[in-house]
């Protein structure tokens, strides 16, 4: 009877295609918007995630996310280095400022200054050598950042950006993760960054560090929080806090509305078409009941139909969503977009829910069909 279920389902091609398309559309909307939400919010922790060597970050107490950088007083570094259980700590200076490329483009940059003496916070490189930034006024930039600064121009070392009255020379392309802000991520030595941070006497934004072997991170964090006026967070907590910050800014709302629409339209359309399918096939279904096809068999048949529709609709929807992500991420500003696996799985669960709900509603109609109607025309 499973084979019969497939034949019934595929016979009316228009309805079959309509049902698949309804599921595909809903899946596409959910995955597209869900991916944007998840990927963009996920990017709020990109620059924290990129510094793999550290256990914790220390910052101004009111800092809510990575992009809200407010510098720490200079004594912070020494104090944190002196806390028991801290193996080492390094300064990181973050500043957002404007620059003009030698190409004539005016752009806002996200500059990260790292300490050349210990190399913590240096990015991994795609092109060129990261050691270049040890020189004064030399920088590396992420690939999307390059495309924003020098659109249409292949990377060539030696291009410059004027920031205030200094010229930054770009010596390489890093593989820094795309930031939430979409801005070019420019790594320099902390000395260069300090010179560019006009009007600010404080010399670092964050102190990042590692705990001594055998020390519990939470204990060390508690000690820093107790003995200093600053806020210490584990690497993961800082990422989570940045994520929640943007979540709290209403970012999900924009996407959730579209996700809800996708869900509602998908459910309504799929259920509607499935009911129409049951209605169109009522004579066949009643005849099968009279021939001794049990309700259990019919339930299995309809479940198989629902599963098949889900599979096809989801495959199409996922393919389109993934291709769309690929297409959108070609825009440098949106370079962080991708389709996260959890989004696909969640969407699959929803779509299966929709299809099985539709099949269930249809099945109740089938249950209600009177076998004696088989003789009526």
């Amino acid at each position, binding site marked *: *009877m499973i*084979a*019969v279920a497939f*034949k*019934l389902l*595929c*016979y009316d091609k228009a309805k079959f295609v309509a049902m698949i398309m309804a599921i595909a559309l809903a899946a596409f909307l959910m995955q597209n918007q869900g991916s944007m939400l998840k990927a963009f919010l996920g990017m709020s922790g990109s620059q924290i995630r990129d510094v793999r060597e550290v256990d914790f970050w220390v910052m101004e107490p009111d800092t809510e996310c990575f992009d809200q950088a407010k510098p720490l007083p200079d004594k912070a570094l020494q104090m944190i280095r002196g806390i028991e259980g801290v193996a080492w700590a390094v300064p990181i200076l973050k500043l957002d400022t404007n620059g003009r490329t030698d190409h004539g483009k005016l752009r806002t940059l996200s500059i990260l200054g790292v300490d050349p003496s210990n190399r913590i916070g240096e990015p991994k490189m795609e092109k060129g050598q990261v050691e270049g930034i040890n020189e004064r006024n030399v920088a590396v930039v992420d690939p999307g950042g390059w495309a924003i600064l020098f659109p249409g121009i292949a990377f060539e070392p030696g291009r410059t950006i004027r920031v205030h009255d200094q010229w930054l020379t770009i010596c390489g392309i890093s593989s820094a993760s795309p930031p939430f802000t979409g801005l070019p991520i420019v790594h320099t030595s902390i000395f260069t960054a300090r010179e560019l941070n006009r009007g600010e006497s404080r010399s670092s934004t964050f102190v990042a560090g590692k705990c001594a072997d055998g020390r519990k991170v939470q204990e060390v964090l508690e000690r820093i929080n107790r003995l200093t006026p600053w806020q210490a967070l584990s690497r993961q907590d800082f990422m989570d806090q940045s994520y929640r910050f943007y979540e709290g800014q209403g970012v999900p709302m924009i996407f959730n509305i579209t996700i809800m629409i996708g869900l509602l339209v998908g459910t309504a359309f799929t259920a509607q078409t499935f009911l129409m399918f049951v209605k169109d096939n009522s*004579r*066949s279904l009643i*005849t*099968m009941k*009279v*021939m*001794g*096809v*049990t309700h259990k*068999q019919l339930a299995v048949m309809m479940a198989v139909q629902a599963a098949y529709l889900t599979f096809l609709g989801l495959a199409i929807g996922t393919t389109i969503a993934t291709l769309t992500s690929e297409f959108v991420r070609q825009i440098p500003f949106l370079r962080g977009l991708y389709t996260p696996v959890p989004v696909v799985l969640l969407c699959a669960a929803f779509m299966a829910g929709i299809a099985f709900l539709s099949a269930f509603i249809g099945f109740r109609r089938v249950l209600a069909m*009177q*076998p*004696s109607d*088989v*003789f009526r*025309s």
Partner: protein
Amino acid sequence: MISAVTCHQVRKTFGSGDTVIEVLRGVEFSAHLGEMTFLVGPSGCGKTTLISVIAGLLNASAGEVSLFGIHLPELGSREQILFRRKNLGFVFQQYNLIPALTAAENAAMPLLAAGESLKSAVNKSKVVLERLGMGHRADQLPRTLSGGQQQRVALARALVHEPRLIICDEPTAALDHESGETVMQLLSSSAVHPDRAVVVVTHDNRVFHYANRIAHMNDGVITHVEEKRHKPHLS
């Protein structure tokens, strides 16, 4: 003569209160193995209702119906379905073929319902279609077949699982005379069998000569039963 179907004082009412109508008013009816029994009468006299009750698709309001000595209402609903699947074959006025399935797949439906694989069920149904002169159309969809051909596929479906009772409701009413003749001929030559009873509802008096017995119905009761001269197909 062995009774396949016996109805005793069968009543059936529809509706309730003021709108209640009694469609069957104490039916006495029987159909025997090896025979083709016709149920004839004017439109609206209750023929379809009676065979629905016999087939267990409707429950009688009163009276007794037994099939091969079994009272269907006494079985559980699942047992009733399984009993019907095994013992009954149906032919309908409107053929009731499933448009999405080929002739052979349609004819195989009772076997598929019983859990047989598509391949083996279709192989068996093709043998029956062959016998009914439909072998060459076995792989075609119903919409490509004429009415007479569709009814022959339906007949194959009623025969494929070798049921003990075949119930036909107006099998020739939608067909022209020639196709109707063919269907009736095939019905009497392949369906009638010593271990099987065939009940045919019709008001097409041109095919009455195929009957072994004719039960005349009017206004919810069997008025008289006519025994035909020619012998039932008993071996």
